[in-house]
């Protein structure tokens, strides 16, 4: 599990050094939009899995909030790319994120009860940490459109809240 979490974080951390395949090593706005949207979508799917499997009130409450918050952010992102006439562009970072998320979902799918709850919430802490660090260090500084930068910055504050919320739930499960 640790390796998987490290792998997911690694896909985002790799951005800092290499970036998706592009000349300057810096992701472009269409790539940033795709990565941010994909990262949100992954967390919605993780939460939907938790809503099916968990019976813990705290975990369910957290997962419900992940669905509504990430949906709200992604709706804003879709409206913005439409307004800016930007077509989100798939890239290696998005692909690797999706691939690792699928592995994680399969792994969590085999667990149940408190073992599932703990693994889901621990992964949420690690995942939000990785996404927040990628946003802060790579995606926000690389974004050139001010409106995209602004939405990513609001997103970062929301996701930093999620990281703390996940830490509270993790502490309550112990």
């Amino acid at each position, binding site marked *: 599990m640790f390796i998987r979490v490290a792998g997911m974080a690694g896909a985002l951390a790799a951005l800092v050094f290499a970036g998706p395949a592009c000349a300057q090593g810096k992701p472009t706005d269409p790539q940033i939009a795709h990565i941010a949207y994909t990262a949100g979508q992954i967390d919605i799917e993780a939460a939907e899995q938790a809503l099916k499997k968990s019976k813990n009130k705290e975990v369910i409450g957290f997962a419900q*909030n992940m669905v*509504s*918050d990430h949906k*709200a*952010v992604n709706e*804003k992102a879709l409206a913005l790319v439409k307004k800016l006439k930007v077509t989100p562009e798939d890239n290696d970072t998005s692909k690797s994120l999706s691939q690792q998320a699928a592995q994680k979902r399969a792994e969590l799918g085999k667990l149940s009860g408190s073992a599932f709850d703990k693994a889901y919430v621990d992964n949420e802490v690690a995942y939000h940490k990785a996404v927040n660090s990628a946003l802060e260090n790579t995606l926000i500084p690389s974004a050139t459109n001010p409106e995209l930068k602004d939405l990513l910055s*609001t997103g970062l*504050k*929301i996701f*930093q*809240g*999620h990281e*703390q*919320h996940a830490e*509270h739930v993790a502490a309550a499960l112990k």
Partner: protein
Amino acid sequence: MRRAFAGPTFGALLLALAASSARAEVIEIKAEKLAFAPAQIAAHVGDTIVWVNADFVAHTATARNGAWDMMMPPNTKKELVLKSAGTVDYYCKFHPNMIGKITVTE
């Protein structure tokens, strides 16, 4: 007889209402871009706090002492009449990086 009695009582009630509403204030706190502003408030018993959620995600204003828990869907307002003196720290359950404090005096 009854009328004569009801007159002054009603008048006194109105006076009492006017006196208390003259003192009671309405204090607005905005929840915007994941922060409560102003984050610290000094108020009196009887004042009304109005939280305005200007964000596109839901927030809560949840008292750490369990006294109240206000749920605010996106772009909504919630009101709370302060009933007792004391200092209450509060936060958003969904985004615990949002914190505030209300100090209530008599």
